[in-house]
């Protein structure tokens, strides 16, 4: 963006919103919004505490495991659905149902099935992320140029070669798009899991801070979480740009 002839760096609009936040906080309109400067100061003290680091480790573990399963299962299932008509007919209705279903309502069922521990949280995270990954991988394979498949076949490619050297790469731009959205959904999944299943990790911190009206702490942890999610999403967007040179020309 260019203002008065100066090119502003990316996301400089955040400064405006930060100032507004500070202003609202200073006016003491509501206890719910402390000034941003106070939140940032709290942030520094909170990050150093053992409670925060434990929460971060627990959340990171659940998140990475959940996202890992979503990717490792989601991509091959999506690709196979795109290749195999029978499998597609069999699974597509379920994928669509789960994609649009309010998964939070399922969490109590998961608690019954998998107990009140880390396992249930990881599965919740996976369930939040996996469906869009499957659907996007499938879409990526569906749009693949038929003659690329014929070409590989005519040069004697084995099914394994075709999978890893043709289908995966041809669908990669869509797959990365799906993974990015899936990961954003998984952030929701891991927090909802931590709040509903067992009060651990950031879920426990949110619970603790909001119950004790420690709004500065509450916002500080939220900012950390938003920043982490945003960073991961931006990293995947960067990966997507890396393959965009062929995405439009397949």
């Amino acid at each position, binding site marked *: 963006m260019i203002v008065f002839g100066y090119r502003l760096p990316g996301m400089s609009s955040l400064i405006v919103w930060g100032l507004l936040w500070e202003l609202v906080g200073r006016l003491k309109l509501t206890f719910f919004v402390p000034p941003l400067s106070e939140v940032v100061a709290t942030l520094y003290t909170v990050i150093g505490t053992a409670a925060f680091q434990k929460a971060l480790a627990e959340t990171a573990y659940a998140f990475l495991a959940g996202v890992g399963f979503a990717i490792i299962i989601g991509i091959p299932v999506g690709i196979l659905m795109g290749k195999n008509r029978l499998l597609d007919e069999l699974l597509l209705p379920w994928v669509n149902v789960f994609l649009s279903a309010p998964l939070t309502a399922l969490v109590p069922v998961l608690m019954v099935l998998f107990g009140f521990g880390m396992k249930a949280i990881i599965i919740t995270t996976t369930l939040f992320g996996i469906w869009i990954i499957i659907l996007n991988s499938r879409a990526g394979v569906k749009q693949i*140029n038929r*003659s*690329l498949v*014929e*070409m*590989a*076949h*005519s*040069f*004697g*490619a*084995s099914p394994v*070669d075709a999978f890893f*050297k*043709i289908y995966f*790469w041809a669908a*990669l731009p869509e797959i990365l798009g799906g993974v990015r959205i899936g990961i954003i959904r998984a952030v929701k999944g891991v927090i909802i899991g931590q709040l509903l299943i067992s009060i651990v990790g950031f879920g426990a911190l949110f619970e603790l801070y909001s119950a004790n009206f420690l709004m500065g702490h509450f916002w500080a942890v939220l900012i950390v979480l938003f920043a982490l999610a945003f960073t991961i999403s931006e990293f995947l967007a960067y990966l997507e740009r890396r*393959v965009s*040179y*062929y995405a439009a*020309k*397949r």
Partner: protein
Amino acid sequence: MVMSQTKAAFGQAEPADYESAVSARNISKNYGAVEALRDLSLEFPRGQLTSLLGPSGCGKTTLLKIIAGLLQPSAGEVEVNGHTVTGPGPDRAFVFQDFALLPWATVMRNVAFGLEMRGVAKSEREGIAAKYIAEVGLSGFEHSYPHELSGGMRQRVGLARALSVDAQVLLMDEPFSAVDEQTRRKFQEDLLALVQHENKTFIFVTHSIEEAVYVSDQIAILLPRPSRVSEIIRPSSFRSKGVDNIRRDPEYLDIVDQIWASLRSYVE
């Protein structure tokens, strides 16, 4: 006088004093109720270029893909060098109408892809690929990506890929239809040289009458619904007169007219 020359050319289709590299025998292909090919038989002489020519929808690409082993015939069989075709094999290489290049791979990797699928080691296949990249005139573009090349250059990559696996039979599916007219003419001249220098059998699908007559040793005219071979034409005299003289040779012009006369009624 001119007509008699044409007759002489047509007459030569009969005697079989050449060896077949590829034989299609009684091929039928049905798509559900639609009969694409019916009882089609055709011989492809070794070391020569045979064109499959016909109006659109006449099944020429279907026949080519059956020979490639990419499609299974409903009845009949294809033999390549005495072996019945059951699927794709190293004795045949395919050049695609839309080039079918891997958009995420460099020219080098694309050209070497056929060898890669055959398990040739990386350094060896890149050596072979480099030779054919140079042969098709793309030296210096080894590390370019397909989207950085023009249509004509992309098809040269497709051709180099097919040549690098050193198959005896080259199957070309309207290879020049997606490139511009001037590039196409250059390709046709290069193809004549290629047929002459490489001891390979070429099967060439085209919908252009002039192109078929220009490049072919033998032209099979297919008529549609269901497809069968209606005529086989073997031009005799102008091939040796040099690329610059073919298009004004009387026999060339006669054959073009003759083919148009027989195809005219099938064009809507």
